[in-house]
């Protein structure tokens, strides 16, 4: 079974854009034509035209999936894409963007390579949690995209970290 790296406690503040619903309604493949792809396009377009007002030229991007009771019931969930920011430094925020403050917590960090990225890695996270001595106190996880991710066309050479918030099981 894949073993993650466990991080120290940290709080992460992100600025970005979100989508709520079933993002695969129109297209479900690993391409940029589903709603997650549209969200990334919208965010990247905004970033490129508003760099000075926002956060310069970020190198690391986050994709957060937030599940609610409605996700279990009808399959809708929130997807937030963004970049890290320092809330104290944030004097103004363009109206197109919103802020997501992820709680202070430890994370189990799983790294997936190549074809693993398009498999059911959430199942890997769930299966690990069952026997790990940890549980997830929050119903979200996020994907951490840095220069090891080579884009949808370079998936075979890519690596992707997935973070799951954890606490020790009582």
């Amino acid at each position, binding site marked *: 079974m894949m073993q993650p790296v466990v991080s120290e406690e940290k709080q992460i503040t992100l600025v970005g854009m979100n989508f709520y619903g*079933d993002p*695969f*309604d129109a*297209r*479900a*493949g690993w391409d940029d034509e589903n709603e997650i792809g549209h969200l990334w396009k919208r965010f990247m377009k905004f970033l490129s035209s508003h760099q000075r007002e926002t956060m310069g030229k970020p190198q690391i991007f986050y994709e957060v*999936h937030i*599940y609610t009771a409605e*996700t*279990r*019931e*009808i*399959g*809708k*969930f929130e997807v937030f894409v963004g970049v890290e920011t320092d809330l104290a430094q944030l004097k103004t925020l363009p109206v197109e963007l919103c802020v997501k403050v992820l709680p202070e917590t430890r994370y189990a960090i799983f790294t997936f390579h190549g074809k693993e990225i398009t498999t*059911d890695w*959430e*199942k890997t*996270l*769930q299966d690990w949690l069952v026997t790990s001595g940890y549980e997830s106190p929050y119903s979200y996880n996020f994907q951490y995209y840095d220069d090891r991710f080579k884009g949808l066309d370079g998936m075979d050479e890519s690596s992707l970290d997935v973070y799951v918030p954890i606490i020790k099981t009582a």
Partner: protein
Amino acid sequence: MYTQIEIIYQAIEFMESHLRSRVTIAQIAEQSGYSLFYFIRTFNKVVQQTPYDYLVTRRVSEALKMITETDRRITDIALDFCFETPESFSRAFKRLFGVLPSLCRKGSMPEDVFPVPPRTLQDLQFINRSDFALPELVEFEEMTLIGLSSIIDAQDHGKGVDQTERLRMQLAGYLKERKTKIVSVWSYNDHRKQDFLFKGIATEKGIEAFPPLIIQRIPSGKYARIFCRANDQQAALHYLLYTWLPQNSCKQKYRFMIEEESENTNSEMERAIRIPVLMI
């Protein structure tokens, strides 16, 4: 080891057995062995519909059958199919069929309201074939056909296949030119559980036909056309009617389907299926 399509089909069977009992998308995902996220993604990819949409569509379709076939109160039918209020049922019903449930009582059902049947494994295999090509909207001119007609038992697929073959053989006896392409016209009516099948060949306008041959005029207009293999006509028609038309703001104009041999003889997609459509 099941394929992804088979796993999703099993999820569909699970949904079909829970149309009248509460079930969440998470429970259906657990049943499939996938995580919730992966299940939602895979279901959308394989079925081309969200799992929740599928569940609601099928619940409303079965409710429609109960409305037309029984005297049970609509409020009770709504509760039978797990709608929390009659209003939420009416909204879902109107979104799918364009009319309120009360207008679909026995004997007064609008002609163009039909329940959406459950997806079959063949339906899923058809839309997930590597050579599957999306339908296209094509303008066709009026066409005159001469041929034979028969009633086909739509409930008994095996019997229907025999009847279709018999009609083709009978028609062949009347044809002088054996290589002429045969056009099939299926007129179907889900309420009567019968299909009318006409098989014929293109002919000149105004020609006379002597019994048992008959003339069939196919109207000009916009048609949605899809190519498929010879044994995939049913799945192709299902895809056109229940996936492509709603997703493209189209309605079927008349309840018939035309099946022709494809002009591309090198392709395995040897059949062209088309239905007349109306843009909404």
